[in-house]
Structures are given as structure tokens and as C-alpha cells.
């Protein structure tokens, strides 16, 4: 019971910190922290969605950035067409661009989810090392596809010059935007928590432990895994849509495989299959990057060996260290 209390207090402490942080930042006149932590929240959202695959489903996807990128491009492309006043497609029906977050963010979720459905249905035919390499290869295919889209800036990407609009909130105000992202993160966490605790989540978690046993129970694990893959892709798409708003810029770099790797690092740093851990992982990773980059432009030369050490020695992740519990699938 003590351990459960400890876990609850860690989570409550983290939530309180994220809620109050902007107010402190405004008081201290360090508003830079608001945009830094908006980024942390958005990457945390993407990392949580990846944890659904890595930690709960036992699916090691090395192409998760693709869905982040697709989400960002959906927001970017609708924005671009709204600015240029030209329809996105005119055959078979006319579709106009839009800056309305209530339209473009759900679209980012749906379209990323759709891509995850197509790619996942192919990738999930394989297991183990094959799965890792194939998810990476498909993500790279999408990357090259967007590089070849000259209309949207090709390799250089596209500047958006402002953020989406939302009735009642001013998203170009960093404070409003921060709380909007936090609200979505909490919503997503709630959804994921309900998912992994449900019968569906039980099957997915069981599948990562012993697939054959589930087959013997008459469960078609492929379908469950695919749905899990789609939810994760859709969550990453939402993160991508927010990221496009946060930086007001989209580029194929968002779906580059190094970002997939970094998301994985965040999940592992925070703790596999711990739900809240990946947010902590995202915070530590981005803050470390930020701090190291202040001292040297060659920060990766330290980050690389640090990762190797984390993998070899710290198996439980930071969240496990804080709460003192083993992860769910350890």
C-alpha cells in the first residue's frame, strides 16, 4: 500500500508541477520555459503513444516519427491552402484549407491513424527483428515521399507564420497554447489508461508475453495488435499536429528516423510500460539536450555513451526509480 501511495504522490507531484510551471515562469519572467515545456508535453504525448507499442504491446516500432510527421503535415497543408485560398483537392469534391484547430487536429489524428492502419497491417505480418526493420523502412519511405513534395517545400519544409485558431482560446499566446497541450495530454493519458486496463489491453499485453497461449484461447491477436498500432499512430499524429503549431514550421525532418529513435529513448529513460514514465523521459531527454547544448554543440558525443550506459545498467527507467516499483511487463 505504501508503494501505491508513493506512486500516486509522484504522479500528483508531476501534474502539479506541470500545472503551476507557467505561472512561476511568468512571475520569474522566464517565459522561455513555457515554450520549452510545451515542447516537453508534446513530445511526452508522442512518447506515451509509443509506450503503448513498446511497453504494452511488445511491438518494437522504429518508425513512430512517421505518424508525428504526417500529423504535422496535415495541419501544415490545410494551413498553407487556407492562406493561399486554393482548394487542396478539387476532384472528386472540393476541399478547402482551414486554420481551425477543431477541424485540423481531428483530421491529423484520423489521417495518421489511417496510415498506421495500412502500414501496420503489412508490418504486423512479421515479428522480432523483421518488424523493427520494416517499420523503419516504411517510415523512411514516407520521409522520402514528403521530401519529394516540392509544392510543400520539399526538403526545406514550410513555415506557417502563425498557429491554428480555436474558439475561446488564443493559441498564438504561449500560455494558452501550453494549457491546451496539457489538457490534450491529460485526455490522452486518460484514454490510454482506460485502454490498457480494459479487456482489450489485457489481450494486447498478453500477446507481448505469450502469443501462442492467446492463440490457443481462440483470440486473433493480429487484430488486437493492429488496433493498438492504430491508436498509437493516431496519438502520434495528434502530437505532430501540436508540434506543427508550436514551432509554426513543418519539414520532413519531423519524420526522420532519428526522431523515432529519440522517442524510443524517452520511453526507455522514463520506464517501459509505465504510462506516465515516458513524459518524465521526454522531460529529462529534452532538458539534457538543452543543457548540454549550452556547453557544447557536440552534445551528442556525450548523449550517445549515456544512452549505452542507461541501457546496460538502468533497466527500470526513471519512473521505476522514483516509485520503487517494477514495470508492468518487466
Amino acid at each position: 500500500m505504501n508503494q501505491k501511495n508513493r506512486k500516486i504522490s509522484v504522479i500528483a507531484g508531476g501534474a502539479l508541477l506541470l500545472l503551476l510551471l507557467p505561472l512561476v515562469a511568468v512571475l520569474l519572467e522566464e517565459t522561455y520555459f513555457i515554450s520549452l515545456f510545451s515542447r516537453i508535453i508534446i513530445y511526452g504525448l508522442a512518447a506515451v503513444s509509443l509506450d503503448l507499442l513498446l511497453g504494452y504491446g511488445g511491438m518494437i516500432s522504429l518508425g513512430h516519427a512517421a505518424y508525428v510527421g504526417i500529423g504535422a503535415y496535415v495541419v501544415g497543408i490545410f494551413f498553407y491552402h487556407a492562406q493561399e485560398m486554393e482548394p487542396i483537392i478539387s476532384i472528386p469534391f472540393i476541399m478547402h484549407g482551414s486554420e481551425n484547430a477543431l477541424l485540423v487536429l481531428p483530421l491529423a489524428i484520423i489521417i495518421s491513424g489511417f496510415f498506421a492502419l495500412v502500414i501496420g497491417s503489412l508490418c504486423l505480418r512479421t515479428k522480432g527483428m523483421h518488424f523493427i526493420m520494416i517499420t523503419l523502412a516504411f517510415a523512411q519511405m514516407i520521409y522520402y515521399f514528403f521530401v519529394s513534395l516540392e509544392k510543400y517545400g520539399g526538403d526545406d519544409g514550410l513555415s506557417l507564420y502563425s498557429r491554428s485558431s480555436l474558439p475561446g482560446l488564443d493559441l498564438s499566446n504561449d500560455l494558452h497554447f501550453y494549457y491546451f497541450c496539457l489538457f490534450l495530454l491529460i485526455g490522452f493519458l486518460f484514454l490510454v489508461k482506460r485502454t490498457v486496463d480494459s479487456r482489450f489491453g489485457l489481450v494486447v499485453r498478453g500477446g507481448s508475453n505469450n502469443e501462442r497461449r492467446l492463440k490457443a484461447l481462440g483470440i486473433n491477436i493480429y487484430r488486437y495488435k493492429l488496433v493498438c498500432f492504430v491508436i498509437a499512430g493516431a496519438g502520434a499524429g495528434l502530437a505532430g499536429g501540436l508540434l506543427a503549431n508550436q514551432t509554426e514550421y513543418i519539414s520532413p525532418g519531423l519524420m526522420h528516423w532519428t526522431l523515432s529513435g529519440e522517442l524510443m529513448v524517452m520511453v526507455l529513460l522514463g520506464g517501459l510500460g509505465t504510462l506516465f514514465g515516458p513524459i518524465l523521459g521526454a522531460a529529462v531527454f529534452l532538458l539534457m539536450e538543452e543543457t548540454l547544448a549550452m556547453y557544447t554543440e557536440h552534445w551528442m558525443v556525450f548523449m550517445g555513451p549515456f544512452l549505452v550506459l542507461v541501457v546496460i545498467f538502468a533497466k527500470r527507467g526513471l519512473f521505476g526509480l522514483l516509485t520503487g516499483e517494477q514495470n508492468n511487463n518487466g
Partner: protein
Amino acid sequence: MLLVIEQFLNGLQLGITLFLMSAGLTLVFGIMQVINLAHGSFYMIGAYVCATVAARTGSFLLGLAAALPAAAFTGMLVEFIVLRRLYKREHLDQVLATFGLIMFFNELTRIIWGRQPLFLDVPPWLSDSLELLPGLIYPVYRLAVIGVGILVALALWYLFSRTRLGMQIRAGASNRDMISALGVNIKLLYTLVFGLGTLLAGLAGVMAGPILAVEAGMGENILILTFVVIVIGGIGSIRGAVAGALLVGLVDTLGRAFLPTLFRLIFQSATADAAAASLASMAIYILMAAILVWKPKGLFPAHS
């Protein structure tokens, strides 16, 4: 027609480079069951060491002679320090640790050699062009690359099927504990196999050096193509690596060369160029998806 033959040779040459990369990597995957993302780093090390030594001494051969041991030695060192601890761990751990290694090696080359790409010249004795057919002039260097690749393939075949070491490696792949019980030093064997793989990656890097720019991160572009090759060919299979590499090399090169012309026959030129460019860059992935639907374990699965 001559253009087709020329592009075919270019595709063959890309295929050979991919074969050298994937032969080493597929062995490491198949024998040690470890996924190594950092294989491209050894390709990069080969290219950088060769470019530096060749620039200092003016001799490409000396560059080659320095690059191969450099790649093999770094490889064995990495195996000894890091990878050895990961053989029994989950794939996820292996992916993350080798991802960390990539970050380290890329940044290290930026520190040592700077951000500007290096250029490696074709050695003078290979810089001529040969008239293969009337009207078809082809650089000797690229022919030499193809020749070296064929030699390496033959040497690997000999090593695996005709020597004692090759037999031990094959035995280690099928049953690690058994060969260890028979008195073979399996740890040393793994280090040697890893070194052989990185040596081949270094060789690929040296040969690609005069054709591409030598820069930090060059390893990752080829690494992902190598993954496609291995998925197509089947993990752990040298035969699969040959077939997959040639297939990927040819489809990629021929697609980029001829899809625009084909598309222009059907569509207007502006749309055709854009569509052909996207399709050409995605062609090998579509090929991979098709093969996967047909044979999920690749064309030549090693343990079937």
C-alpha cells in the same frame, strides 16, 4: 538501349555496395541474434580513414590498407565493450544502445573532421573510361567496384562452405551451447564474425567514397537500404543478401532513371516529373512490401 545497359551497370554497382554492407550485417543478425543499427558507422569510418590517408600520402591503396583494419578493429572493440553485454537482452535494448553508438560516432567524426564533406578522388590508375560496346563508355572505377564485389562474394562462399572457421560459424548459428560445449571459444568466434562484418562495411565505405561525398551521417542512408535488402533476402542468409542487394540496387537505379520517361508518355510533363520522382524514391519500399506479403520471412530464409 545503350542507356539501359549503362543504368543496369550503375544498378549493379549500387547492388554490390549494398551486398558488402548486408553480408556483414545479416551474419551478425543471424548468428548472434543481435540487431545492430551502428553498422553504418563502420562504413563511415572506412570512408573517412581512406579519404584522410589518401589525401596525406596521395595513394588510394594505402588509404584502403589503413581503412580496412580501422573498421575491423573499431568493430571488434565495440563488440568487446558494448554489444557483448547485449546478446541475451531484448531487441529493444540492442536498438537503443546501438542508436546511442550512432550518435557518438557521427558526432565524433564531426569533431575530428568538421562538418564539411571530404572528397576522395578516384585513383589515377582507375580514372580512365572503357568503351565496353561501341558507343558505351563506362568508368573503369565503377567496373572495378563490381569486380571487387564479385571477388568478395566468392571469398565469402569459400570461407563458409570450405573452411573450418566457416563451419564453426555455421554451427554457432544453429546451436550456440552445443558448439561451446565442443570446446570452441564462442566469444572469440563472435568477435571475429563481428570484425569481419565491419571490415566489409569499411570496404563498402572506401569504394563508395569516390562516388559519394564523405560526410557524417553517410552511414545511415545506406543502413536503411541495407535493412530493406536484409528483409527482402531473409535474415542470416548470405544468398538472400546477394539476391536482395542486386534487386534493390537495380530497382532503385532503373526506377530513378526511367520512371520519368515512362510517366511522360502518359501524363503532362510537370505532373509526370513530380509523380515519377516520388514513385522512384519509394520504389524499393513498395518492392519490399510486395515481397513481404508474398513471403513474410524473405526470399531465402536462413533457418527454414
